[in-house]
């Protein structure tokens, strides 16, 4: 089922991805309440000096918000890192695949840093299949026990043309969505997939919003 959905999305987006230049950053922003982020905020609000990992694109607002709470921030745009064309290597059975080890070394090599919270946003939905589980495992190793991860996952109703947004924090419960360059939605995770993906973590809490996104707060 999931594989057929993935195939459907891939076919649908093959044409879209080849049309013209990628869309530049838009000035338009959409305000959005986020209960998942509200729960995430409650976790990090209590104490100062936590280390937060942001896996999204560089957002001045996120940096402002998190550092103003007295936290340290580590920012790496993993989707931009995964888009590096030099990661592509010949596959054993023909065709090409991605050099997972190099991706991990260049993008999620935290050099022994430990984190208390991770903003994963909807990275897993847009990341190449082969990179998702290694990324989640790498984060698990870098997240302190009791640390939290916030992930967004599109529902099936979002459709293959779900626009890619950058997420900017505006308050403890509000986000701004900024349309960004076109990215291909790689798959739709259902709740069971998400539970399997984060099987090594202690607990998951799901929130469903009206805009076809499930927000998931994962505790290590």
């Amino acid at each position: 089922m999931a594989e057929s959905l993935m195939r459907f999305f891939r076919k649908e987006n093959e044409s879209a991805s080849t049309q013209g230049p990628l869309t530049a950053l838009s000035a338009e922003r959409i305000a959005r309440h986020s209960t998942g982020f509200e729960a995430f905020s409650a976790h990090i609000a209590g104490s100062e000096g936590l280390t937060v990992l942001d896996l999204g694109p560089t957002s001045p607002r996120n940096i402002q918000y998190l550092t103003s709470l007295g936290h340290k921030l580590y920012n790496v745009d993993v989707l931009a890192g995964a888009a590096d064309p030099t990661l592509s290597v010949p596959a054993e059975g023909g065709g090409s695949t991605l050099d997972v080890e190099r991706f991990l070394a260049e993008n999620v090599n935290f050099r022994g840093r430990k984190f208390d919270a991770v903003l994963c946003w909807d990275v897993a939905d847009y990341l190449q299949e082969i990179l998702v589980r290694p990324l989640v495992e790498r984060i698990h190793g870098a997240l302190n026990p009791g640390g939290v991860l916030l992930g967004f996952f599109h529902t099936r109703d979002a459709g293959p043309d779900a626009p890619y947004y950058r997420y900017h924090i505006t308050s403890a419960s509000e986000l701004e969505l900024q349309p960004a360059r076109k990215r291909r939605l790689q798959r739709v995770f259902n709740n069971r997939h998400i539970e399997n993906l984060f099987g090594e973590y202690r607990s998951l809490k799901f929130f469903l919003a009206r805009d076809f996104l499930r927000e998931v707060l994962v505790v290590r």
Partner: protein
Amino acid sequence: MWKARTEDKPVTVPTPAAGSPAPGASVSAAPAPRPAPTPRAGENFRGEMAHIGKSVLIKGELSGSEDLYLDGEVEGNVDLKQHCLTIGPHGRVRANLRAREIVVHGKVDGNISGEKVELKKSAILMGDISTQRIVIEEGAYFKGAIDIQKEPRGDNKREIAVASTPGSALDFSEPAMPLLEKKI
């Protein structure tokens, strides 16, 4: 009655343009007075600091006690202590940078330490930032850690500026409902 009197008009004093003859020099025909070109802030700023051009490559330790505009390529370390360092748009730096104020337009691969750090929209920084005040423009690319230091003298006020365009406020969502909490 309402005519403007000529003596009321503001008097403009022509300013000699750069390169024009000095007063008292003999000229056959006086040049038409031109308004003095207003130096742009950036040019003026650059004029007061040491400048490393875009064709220059430096490998090693770079230290100094004056402001520096660096538009070339540097591999090593840059230490300006209490002065300002600007990495120009052509600047390609693989070095750790230390200065009182650091402005990045170009590409830096290394750690940055200063009282104030500015990442302009064209900036690409791969390294850690340790500073008291930071300004990041929308469009800057940053990969690394940010540690905001508390200001000395007991002043804990931080300046973290955001240069971004406020967007529309179309709130299409409603507060989400917790669906289930799975204990593994």
